């Protein structure tokens, strides 16, 4: 078996997700190579070479791969995939954007959001917003898989893989990058944070999200949100936790003013400890919360911040 892992990049650096994908690759077994593709990604390639379990890092450093646009990335993967039995990426917006192209061009299915490995061809994946877990077996010659990072603990960084240059340059006149508005934040990344505190429609407006800041500072937490809070414009889209947003599984998740719709639960119910703060004692979020506090968040949050 031989596995190619597409590395995730964040502003040119290696993103934390990749170490989780390698862990999944180790469970499949076999040689593991990592593809780092982008522009100016030498540092990311060096970080990838340190991940435990990696044999070889293949680097495609070229302007055509800048911003990892789907069309050139898909073509590059098709060029390289012939050497492998499995191609993996994290179920990030990049992995989801690019990997299905590889699958289609190789005439194979893709398994999305895999959170467990049974064997080299049999995997577990959530369906129906995580309300069922399917065991699926793929008889395709090439397995194309996106990995749900919360299902696998990150590998360590004591590796020393070789780095090899990939010279393949593909043409792309169909798509071009225009601009990016990335949310700047000093807080930990939602997907990797040990503590997450999320606000919902109950927060009332964007200004009130500041009530979560002090608590997040004290706990070193990332801040998330429900879809309703994002739709209402309280906070940006990258904060949405749920079936169609980010999946998190921190040690502690605090849901504030969130009712607990199944689409929200899908994104956080694998957290170790869940706390819910809600004024409605019948809110469904209490059915999954380890600790529920019924009351007005505008009174509870300042008190919590001062007492932590």
């Amino acid at each position, binding site marked *: 078996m031989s596995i190619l892992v597409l590395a995730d990049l964040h*502003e040119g650096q290696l993103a934390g997700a990749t170490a989780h994908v390698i862990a999944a690759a180790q469970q499949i077994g076999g040689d593991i190579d990592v593809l780092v593709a982008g522009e100016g990604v030498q540092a990311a390639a060096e970080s990838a070479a340190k991940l435990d379990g990696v044999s070889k890092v293949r680097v495609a450093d070229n302007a055509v791969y800048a*911003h990892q646009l*789907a069309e050139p990335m898909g073509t590059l993967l098709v060029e390289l995939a012939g050497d492998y039995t499995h191609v993996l990426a994290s179920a*990030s*917006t*990049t992995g*989801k954007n*690019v*990997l*299905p*192209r590889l699958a*289609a*061009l190789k005439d194979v*299915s*893709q398994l*999305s*959001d895999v959170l467990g490995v049974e064997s080299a061809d*049999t995997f577990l994946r959530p*369906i*129906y917003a*995580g*309300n*069922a*877990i*399917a*065991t*699926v*077996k*793929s008889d*395709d010659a090439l397995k194309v898989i996106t990995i749900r990072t919360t299902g696998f603990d990150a590998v360590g960084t004591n590796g020393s893989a070789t780095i090899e240059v990939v010279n393949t340059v593909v043409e792309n006149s*169909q*798509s*071009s*990058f225009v601009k*990016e*508005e*990335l*949310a700047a934040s000093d807080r930990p990344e939602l997907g990797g944070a040990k503590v997450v505190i999320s606000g919902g429609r109950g927060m009332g407006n964007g200004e009130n999200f500041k009530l979560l800041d002090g608590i997040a500072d004290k706990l070193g937490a990332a801040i998330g949100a429900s*879809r309703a809070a*994002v739709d209402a414009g309280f906070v*940006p*889209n*990258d904060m949405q936790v749920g*079936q*169609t947003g980010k999946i998190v599984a921190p040690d*502690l998740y605090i849901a504030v003013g969130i009712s607990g719709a199944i*689409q929200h639960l899908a994104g956080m*119910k694998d957290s170790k*400890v*869940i706390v819910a703060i809600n004024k409605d*004692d019948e809110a469904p979020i209490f*059915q999954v*919360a*380890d*600790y*529920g*506090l019924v009351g007005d968040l505008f009174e509870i949050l300042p008190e*919590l911040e001062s*007492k*932590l």
Partner: protein
Amino acid sequence: MKVLVAVKRVIDYNVKIRVKADHSDVDLTNVKMAMNPFCEIAVEEAVRLKEKGVATEVVAVTVGPKAAQEQLRTALALGADRAIHIETDERAESLAVAKLLAKVVEEEQPGLVILGKQAIDTDNNQTGQMLAALTGLPQGTFASEVAVDGDKVHVTREIDGGLQTIALTLPAIVTTDLRLNEPRYAKLPDIMKAKKKPLDVKTPADYGVEVASKVSLLKVESPAERKGGVKVASVDELIDKLKNEAKVL
């Protein structure tokens, strides 16, 4: 410009599914079905493009059993001009659907194809990307804004770090995210009118596409249930429990 919209019949998003006792699949008997919410957003976007004079015709297409015609009628009531039903009782996975849609694209030559980013039953998030790869057309996935400008379309995408805008040459494939628009409801007169709009029925064989997939479903299980915990009476008790019982502070 013609706009093609792909819609899927799925379980209503409010329904909580149950796994069959024999673990062969989820139980969909007597469960309320509806148009996939992301497909509603796709139809809405297409109809708005027509209202703006950018699109000249909106064609809705679905792959699925006979009952999926209900969702096509909904699309017609919402403003689509005609519909194509590719009828099959087999489980059509994303790859097979993408292959069928690629054939429809070849036949219909749309300027834009709009799909949902994800079907809320399989949660695959693949079909649009696969269709783009198979047709050789550029893709703008997870769109929160779509602006057609001459022979290009600007798509603003919801990505993990925030928003990204890309420019694509037309024809192009777009998949919708939640913030693209707020779909309208179908009005009764439009529902009546939709019954008379053209709806073509085809089969996968008409397109020479094999629906069977090499992925088999071995087993479906319920996830580990979370037990509801306790209610605490005060902030002090909460902090105490988190420190001394859960040991997460």
